[in-house]
């Protein structure tokens, strides 16, 4: 296990299940023996605003938040939000983007445009970019609300954790009737 602290940044919009997702990721890292800290800001964010969650792990983690330019993986649940936090990534960082678009109020009002060509902008700065349609995959998994678990599945390919660790944590994280859909969503995301 490397001594250095690694950082994942989850970003998206209130209501997308980001906090639950970062809980699951943190618990998986913890059960694999890492020191883990995660941090988020909620409150006003619940009302459709931006939500971010930092997950940091390693041998000994001090700060629960990352500085700009040091994040290893940006897990973005909404396309536009990817751009907002791009400068947190380090040069060889990886970006995972959910293709979902959620319009902010100014776009709804027709005052501003939802930016076009986001994938292109991201690709200009970063080599490792993975784009998925988590909502569609979640529907395939049988439950549209499992999009966040799909994203965890995609992320799992970038982390050195045993499959059984993920499955155990997901099993515990959801009420029994939702476990099956979420396990399916996780696997579909992992193979996406």
């Amino acid at each position, binding site marked *: 296990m490397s001594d250095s*602290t690694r950082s994942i940044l989850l970003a998206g*919009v*209130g209501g997308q299940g980001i906090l639950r997702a970062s*809980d699951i990721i*943190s*618990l998986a890292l*913890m059960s694999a023996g890492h*020191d*883990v*800290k*995660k*941090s*988020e*800001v*909620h*409150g*006003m*964010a*619940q*009302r*459709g*605003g*931006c939500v971010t969650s930092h997950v940091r792990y390693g041998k000994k*983690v*001090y*700060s*629960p*938040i*990352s*500085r*700009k*330019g*040091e994040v290893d993986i940006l897990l973005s649940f909404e396309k*536009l*939000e990817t*751009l*907002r936090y*791009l*400068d947190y990534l380090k*040069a060889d960082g990886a970006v995972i983007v959910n293709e979902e678009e959620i*319009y*902010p*109020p*100014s*776009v*709804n*009002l*027709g005052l*501003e*445009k*939802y*930016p076009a060509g986001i994938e292109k*902008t991201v690709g200009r*700065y970063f080599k490792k970019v993975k784009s998925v349609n988590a909502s569609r995959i979640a529907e395939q998994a049988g439950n549209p609300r499992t999009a966040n678990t799909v994203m965890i599945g995609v992320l799992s390919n970038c982390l050195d954790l045993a499959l059984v660790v993920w499955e155990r944590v997901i099993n515990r994280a959801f009420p029994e009737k939702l476990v099956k859909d979420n396990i399916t969503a996780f696997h579909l995301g992992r193979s996406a």
Partner: protein
Amino acid sequence: MKELLSGNEAIARGAYECGARFAAGYPGTPSTEIMEEFAKYPDVYAEWAPNEKVALETAIGAGLAGARAMAVMKHVGVNVAADPLFTVSYTGTNGALVIITADDPSLHSSQNEQDNRNYAKFAKVPMLEPSSSQEAKDFARLAFEISERFDTPVFLRTTTRLSHSKSIVNIGEPDVREGREGIKINPAKYVMVPMNARARRMEVEKRLGALRDFAETFPENRIEWNSREAGVIASGMAYNYAKEAFPEYSFLKLGMAYPMPDRMIREFAAGVRKLYVVEELDPFIEEHVRTLGIEATGKEIFPAMNEFDPGIIEHAITGIKPESRITPPKIPARPPNLCPGCPHRGLFYVLGKLNAFVSGDIGCYTLSFMEPLMGLHSCICMGASIGMAHGMSRALGDKGRGKVVGVIGDSTFVHSGITPLLNSAYNRSNIVVVICDNRTTAMTGMQDHPATGRTLLGNETVRLDFEKLAAALGIESIRVIDPRKIRETRTALKEELLKEGPSVVISRGACVLLRTGKKEETRKKLRVDADKCTGCGVCLGLGCPPISWKKFESARTSSRGKVQEGTAVIDPALCAGCTLCRQICGAGAIQEAVE
């Protein structure tokens, strides 16, 4: 057993493990979960008080009865509780009294970013400041022990970043603690008339002296010697950031933010060539270090505003700002918004068009100051809406007739709106007070309050009746409206504004996120009939998340010969079916969506 706990969960756990069984608080981000988590433990008593002053007085009483009690609030809540705070410092606690203050550097969800370490010094009360969830749990126990040992209230200060970060905590078994509750009568200690208070004032000084000595040997004030080239004095979250940015430096970590260990500070300062004080917000430690005649680098390089991260500290010390290779494109902001179906939307849509000054308050509805609703014009603190409206009305005299409204949420009204409403009745101003009654404390996540009829522990209780209360306070015109009916809302407000003296309008509609347990009415989602939509954009004025504007590739001319640039669209996935848009659409273009 190890668990991943937030700072708030850890504080609740720590209090429970050390035998605290009594807590009172008022919800406020970032403190709310402490009470909610504590209330889940077996055999505890925990209550939502109407406000922080009542919560603290309740906890003082419990402590006086011998219990280990805590009062929980956000930073601005301590302002409300300041009156009892400054004098319970004199009386001492008998049992134990821990006051949790949850500060909010960067104002993530607050109206200011006051640094409540100042309250510790101001009220002469010791303060502990944890920097991780493990410390949050451990320091909760230490806070109760210090309170009992020194017969003093103790502050435990957290910040948003600690409260809402999770890290690994060792869970312990709860102590078995003999009940020490009982009535003790000791007027000289507990009746703070001048004669007694003067004597207690001396006790406070003695206690502070003893606490200063204690701070020197308190294990959570510790020196971590490393390179002597530079040393950092820090506490709380700032310690983590500095430690991560400069692990090679020596550190003096202060677990007790007040009073500080002077001998230890001197020893540390003498042991390093260059001394930094790293702290968020005010130069609280720095100023103390300087009073000891010690040179230190602090706020001349570290920001006095907002929370830190390791990068900010690195940049401040090295003077090198890392260049970002990314030129961020200009992207639309994403401010929080009222939810689809929110009962406040109809009310504030009307208020924004009344040509009146709307004196606002603290709650979700404060968001309606933004475009396009723009239905709220001031916000200072809990309860200020009514007092300010009253003052404005009296100052404007006839010029203000029919033009001053105060709006306040149900929980906020109970918190601190009752006395200013009484004042408005007593001192006769011409205002309309709207109680935005969504049946819960929505902003902080659906907490009960005296007007919901349920307690924190989930018991049914008496329900405060706003109509009867307003009448008892001397309000003559009281009416209840449904804010999801725009015409009714507009008519009611206009009528009330014309009346002499203060009126109360109760705008009643449950929060869309509130789970009542009752079967909820299913509402049909709506859609825009593109053939009927004239593209006028009136519905966009609601600022409702599902309604968006779709511009045509090229302008069209409608059957009635009008040029139309685009049309409104409703996202069926988000629509709550509240029908506000249908009510204001002049073209009759909004209809129930066919499933």
